[in-house]
């Protein structure tokens, strides 16, 4: 039973990997960026867990910077994805411009909040 489930899992992951291999490179870059941002956020959470939340505003801005940019990256991914019919008419450059603008605004706020 256990054996079959592990093999199932392996098969599942394999199929996932093969399916993901077909993803366009630009989307993979975005995925990588999201992973990078979330990983950075996680490291900060671990740090806070070890030393405590003081100064809390700095922690929050660091975390929100990462999470925010990750969310924006996800939004970018949605818009850039060619499979997504909803944004078919939207140029990827336009989506990137939105991403840049939103990031700049987000980080202005983050910097203000950093203290």
């Amino acid at each position, binding site marked *: 039973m256990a054996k079959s489930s592990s093999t199932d899992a392996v098969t599942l992951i394999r199929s996932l990997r093969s399916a993901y291999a077909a993803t366009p*490179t630009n989307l993979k870059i975005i995925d990588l960026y999201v992973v990078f*941002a979330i990983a*950075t956020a996680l*490291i*900060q959470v671990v740090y806070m867990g070890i*030393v405590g939340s003081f*100064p809390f505003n700095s922690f929050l801005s660091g975390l929100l910077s990462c999470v925010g940019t990750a969310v924006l990256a996800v939004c970018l991914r949605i818009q850039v994805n060619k499979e997504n019919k909803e944004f078919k008419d939207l140029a*990827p450059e*336009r989506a990137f411009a939105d991403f840049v603008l939103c990031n700049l605004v987000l980080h202005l706020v983050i910097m203000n909040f950093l203290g």
Partner: protein
Amino acid sequence: MPGRGIIILLALIWSSLSICTASVVRPISEAHRSAALELFVPFDGSFGSLEDIYAAFRTLEILGLEKTQDVSDVACESVVDKLGSPSSTAKDLFYALKVNSILRCQAETIKFEEIASKLQTVLKSASSLPDFYYSIGSLLLIKNQGFEVLLSDAAGAFQSIKAFSQSDGRWRYDSSSAESSTYAAGMALEALAGVVSIADSEVDKSMIGVVKNDIVKLFDSIKSYSDGTLYFDDKYVHTNDYRSPLEISASVIRGVTAFAEVASGRVNIPGNKVLGVAKFFLSLGVPGTSKDLFHQIEALSCLENNRIYIPLIISLPATVLSLTSRDQLKVDVTSVFGVPAPPLTVKLLQAINSNSDGKPNIENQELYFDQENSIHYLDIASLKVDVGKYNLIFEASLHDPVAEKKYATGGRTSFSAFFTGSIQIDQAELEILNSDGDSIETIESLDLSKDSSLSLSANHLQTFRLSFQPTTPLGHAFKPHQVFLKLRHETNVEHIFLIESSARQYKLTLDFLGFVEKFYYLSGKYDIELFVGDAIMENSFLRTLGLVELDLPEPPEKAPQAPPQPIDPYLRYGPKAEIRHIFRSPEKRPPKELSLAFFALIFLPLLGFLIGLVRLGVNLKLFPSSPGPVAFSLLFHTGIASVLLLYGLFWLKLDLFTTLKILSFLGIFLVFIGHQTLSRLASTSAKVKSS
């Protein structure tokens, strides 16, 4: 409660005042000398005008005080200057000569004969009293310098001055003026005295007699204060020539004594009046201005040695005498300047206790004379007098009957004095009675010579009773001015009760039932304090007797609340509690190594991201190659980098407004560049797609 406080205050003020007013008249003393030194201070090396210089030097001379050499030199300079100047008026010359008579400036440089002839011409054409006064006064001063002065028409001058006199003894300043003045009378008498002393033989004796009558009339118009002092005053129509009673009295005394000095025979003024005027000058104490001090001192110096009556002042050096320390009743009889009187006997005619009804306690006691200190004294402790406020009546009689005509002692002189002593308090008892009024719950006898610490308890149905009996050293009943009991609750709410006296005993009965509301239903401990005080009681006291624990019923609804106790006024001005500034203690920081480790760790995802990019085979193939778009792309990336750099600066040192200002420019630039770059990129990719 506040009303009672005011009564206590008034009682205290009254008792202190009644002590102060007891000795008003004392001869001229050191206080006058030190006041003179303070008041006559030269300004820029001089005392001012010649009149002021004369006032200063004359006062200092009478009081026997030193005058400094440089001030005298400056004064002499102006004297010589005024006497040599042809434009000087008679008044200027008069005061210059007066200063000269004190300072004795270089006589050789002053041409007295010339001045005398100038004054003679002034005198001839004189039409008003001041003209006569100043010119005759000046001529007299020149005569006193040792020069021959002849009045061409002495009798005429005398007549002219006399013509200004009025029927009531006062004088006019000139023949046209309707007003007569007492001050002018003083001036006129001094001028007449001058005429007589310059040319005695030429003046008609009968005229002198008439002037003497005028003086007597003048003294009939003398005014008196309630304390028996006498003074001269004027009625004023115009306020611009106002003179104080002191100045007017001084002028009259100067004139009258000068006239009495030169006139043959006696001027018939009663000794009491002279004494009254002397007392008026002395009762002023130490005047506050230099002018007043001059008038006071000069007038007294005229009285000190005159031919009418020399006033002898009877005074008490101390009016509060302690029977406990066996103080002696001392009486000073001196002249106005404190010179001991000729041999005389002082008798204490009567000493009447203000409490007794007019019956004298001491009668006809002759005072002993202490030759050494020239003071008359009486040992009151041996006379068995009791404590109290006494009205003392003295009489001084001179031994020499000839001296009786020379000196005025003023007959009976009355003073009030306090004989103080230690009051004994006996039979002091404190009782708590039960409601039936008869049975005694607690009875404590008190020793009021020291604080006690009784501890009593009572409820609202019981009665508190305090009684004691103050007696004088001679065993008589004594009624102190202030006898109060104070009950003070723990919360500082105070109740003060006046203790009434009945016969010999002081008794206070407090039926707590009637006081429940007044006590605001406050049960608990009450401190008991007893005040007994009087001006003549040497051992006035405020004793703590102890405390009584009161058990009062619960307050009904709408019962009055105890008023908030006033904050101790001294606390307001006392030191305030120190304010300590506490800074927030710094938060605990993690160890430096840990933070650095995480700082390094944060780069790991970035590294992973870059490695991932490389593995995905990211390239820059789409990066434009032609120079225009390259420039735009580079500018776009530089723009983003500069905005991020601005954010970094904002974090480090810039403020929000500066940041936003720069950002607005950068933002416009970036939007433009970004649009250019990305639209070009979009068109490229569209081309790629279509191809």
